[in-house]
C-alpha cells in the first residue's frame, strides 16, 4: 500500500470512528448538563449530573426498572443457554435423518417476523394469566433457531474421543454434556451469553405489549417514558439513556470478541 493510500484509509477510518463515537460522547456530556445546554449542543461535560439524577429519580421509578431489567435479562440468559445448548448438542451428537429434518423445520422460525405472531402470543399470555409476569417476557424467546444453530456448530468441534472415553468411564449421556461439553465450550457460552443478555436487555416491543402495569416497567420503557410530556428535560433524558446503556456497554467492551463471535458464530 502506498503512503497516499494509507493516509486515505486512515482518514476514512478516523471519520467513521468519530461519527460512531460522537453521539455517545454527546450522550455522556448531556447527562452532566442542563436541558438547555444539551439542546444548545454544549460538548464539554458539565456539573449538573447530580441534579439530573435527582430529577430522574423523582420522575421515574429507576430502581424498579433496573431491578426488573436485570431480573428479566438474567433469567432469560440462564434459561436460554441451558435449553438451546443442550438442544444444539442433541441435534449434532445424536444426529440422524429425522433430527436433521426437524432442524430444517425449526430454521423456518427464523423467517417469521415477530410482529406476525405478536397478537396470538399476547392472547395466549393473557389466557394463561401471565401478563405482567417475567415468564410472559421470557417464554417466547427462550428457544431460538439461531442459538440452537450456534451450539450445534460448536458441538461439531467437540471431539468424539472424549465422548467415547467418558462412556467407557461410565459417565451417563447427560453427565457427559454437563461435565465435559459445558466446561470445554466456555467461549461459545460466553458468546451466547453476551448476545442473549444484550437482546433481552434492549428488547422493547414485546415488553411494551406484555408489561402493562407500572410495576413491571423495564429500562428501555423508562427511557421511552422520559420523552413524553409537554417539555422534555434533555439532561435527565440523556442520563436515563446513559444508565440504560451502561450495563450493555460494559458487557460489550469486556466481551467484544465474544459478542462478535456470537453474532457471526452460527453462520460459519
Amino acid at each position, binding site marked *: 500500500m502506498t503512503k497516499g493510500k*494509507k493516509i486515505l484509509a486512515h482518514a476514512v477510518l478516523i471519520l467513521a470512528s468519530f461519527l460512531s463515537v460522537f453521539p455517545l460522547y454527546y450522550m455522556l456530556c448531556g447527562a452532566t448538563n442542563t436541558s438547555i445546554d444539551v439542546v444548545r449542543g454544549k460538548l464539554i461535560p458539565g456539573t449538573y449530573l447530580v441534579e439530573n439524577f435527582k430529577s430522574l429519580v423523582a420522575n421515574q421509578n429507576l430502581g424498579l426498572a433496573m431491578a426488573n431489567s436485570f431480573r428479566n435479562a438474567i433469567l432469560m440468559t440462564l434459561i436460554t443457554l441451558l435449553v438451546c445448548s443442550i438442544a444444539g448438542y442433541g441435534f449434532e451428537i445424536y444426529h440422524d435423518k429425522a433430527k436433521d429434518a426437524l432442524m430444517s423445520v425449526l430454521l423456518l422460525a427464523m423467517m417469521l417476523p415477530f*410482529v406476525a405472531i405478536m397478537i396470538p402470543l399476547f392472547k395466549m399470555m393473557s389466557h394463561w394469566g401471565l401478563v405482567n409476569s417475567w415468564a410472559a417476557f421470557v417464554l417466547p424467546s427462550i428457544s431460538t433457531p439461531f442459538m440452537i444453530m450456534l451450539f450445534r456448530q460448536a458441538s461439531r468441534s467437540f471431539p468424539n474421543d472424549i465422548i467415547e472415553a467418558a462412556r467407557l468411564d461410565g459417565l451417563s449421556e447427560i453427565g457427559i454434556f454437563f461435565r465435559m461439553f459445558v466446561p470445554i465450550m466456555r467461549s461459545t457460552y460466553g458468546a451466547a451469553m453476551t448476545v442473549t443478555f444484550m437482546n433481552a436487555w434492549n428488547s422493547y416491543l414485546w415488553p411494551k405489549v406484555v408489561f402493562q402495569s407500572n410495576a413491571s416497567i423495564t429500562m428501555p420503557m423508562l427511557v421511552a417514558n422520559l420523552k413524553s410530556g409537554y417539555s422534555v428535560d434533555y439532561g435527565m*433524558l440523556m442520563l436515563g*439513556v446513559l444508565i440504560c*446503556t451502561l450495563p450493555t456497554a460494559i458487557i460489550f467492551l469486556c466481551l467484544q470478541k465474544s459478542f462478535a463471535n456470537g453474532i457471526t458464530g452460527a453462520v460459519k
Partner: protein
Amino acid sequence: MKKKGLNMEQKRSLTGWAFLLPAALLIFVFCFYPMVQALILSFQKGTGSAVQPAGFANYVRILKDATFQQCLFNTIFYFVIQVPIMLILALILAQLLNSPNIKGKGIYRTMIFLPCATSLVSYSMIFKSLFANDGLVNRVLSTVGIPTVDWFQNAWAARWVIVIALVWRWTGYNMVFYLAGLQNIDYSIYEAARIDGASPLQQFVHLTIPLLKPTILLTAIMSTSGTLQLFDESVNLTAGGPGKATMTLTHYIYNISFVETPKFNYAAALSVFILVVVAVLSAIQMKVGDKRD
C-alpha cells in the same frame, strides 16, 4: 433374532430426542402455533363469542387503507435507501480494516462497532436530541451557512433522520460479519491481483464482493427482515410523524392492536402480509445470490 428392549444405538437416539425436545417444543408452541393462529385470526371478524368467518374481508380492507399505504411506502423507502447505503459502507470499512498494514485496527473496529452496545430506544433518544429544532445538527448547519431544517416537521427530513440513525446503529454490526468473512479469504489473492495490475476498485468489485457473496446475502436477508420490522425508532425517534409520514408497518400494527380500539383480526391480516413480503424478498435475494455462481 430380535433383542428385547432397546439396543445402545436406539437408547442414544432417544437421549438425543430428550435433549432437543424442550427447545423444539418451545419453538412450536411460541412460534409456529401463534403463526397458525394469526392466519386463522386474519380470516375472522368479531371477538369473543361473536367470532365469524370473514373470508378475505380483512385482506380486501388492506387495499383500501390509506394509512397502511403510507406506512408501506415509508417502510419500502427505509428498505430501498438505507439497506444498500449501510451494506456498502460496512463492506468498505471491513475491506479497509482487513488490509494487513494498517495500524490501530483494533481501536477502529471497537469504535465503529460500539453503536451496537446501545439499545434501540436509547439511540433513538440521542438522535431525537441531536436533530431537535434548536439542536446540535441545526446549530452546526447554521454556523457553516447552510439553512437549518425543521427535521421532525418535514416528512422527507424526518425519514432521512431515521435512515441516518439506522445507518449509525447497524453499519458496525454488518461490518463485523464482513470482517469474519474476509478473514476466511487468503490475503495472497489480493497480492496476486495487485501484481496483475488490478486497481483497488477492481479488487473490491471482482474479488471482495464475489468472495463474500454468502455473507452479503446473509446480511441482506437480515437487514430486509429487520427493516420490515422497524418499530422502536418509529415510535421513539419521530413518533411516526409528522402526521404518519415516518410510521412503519410494525408501528401501525402495534397501534391498531394496542393503542386504538383493538382490531386484532385486521392487525393479523396486516402481519400475515408482512410475513409474505419478508418471505418473497428473501427468496428473491437468494435467487439473485445464487445466479452468478
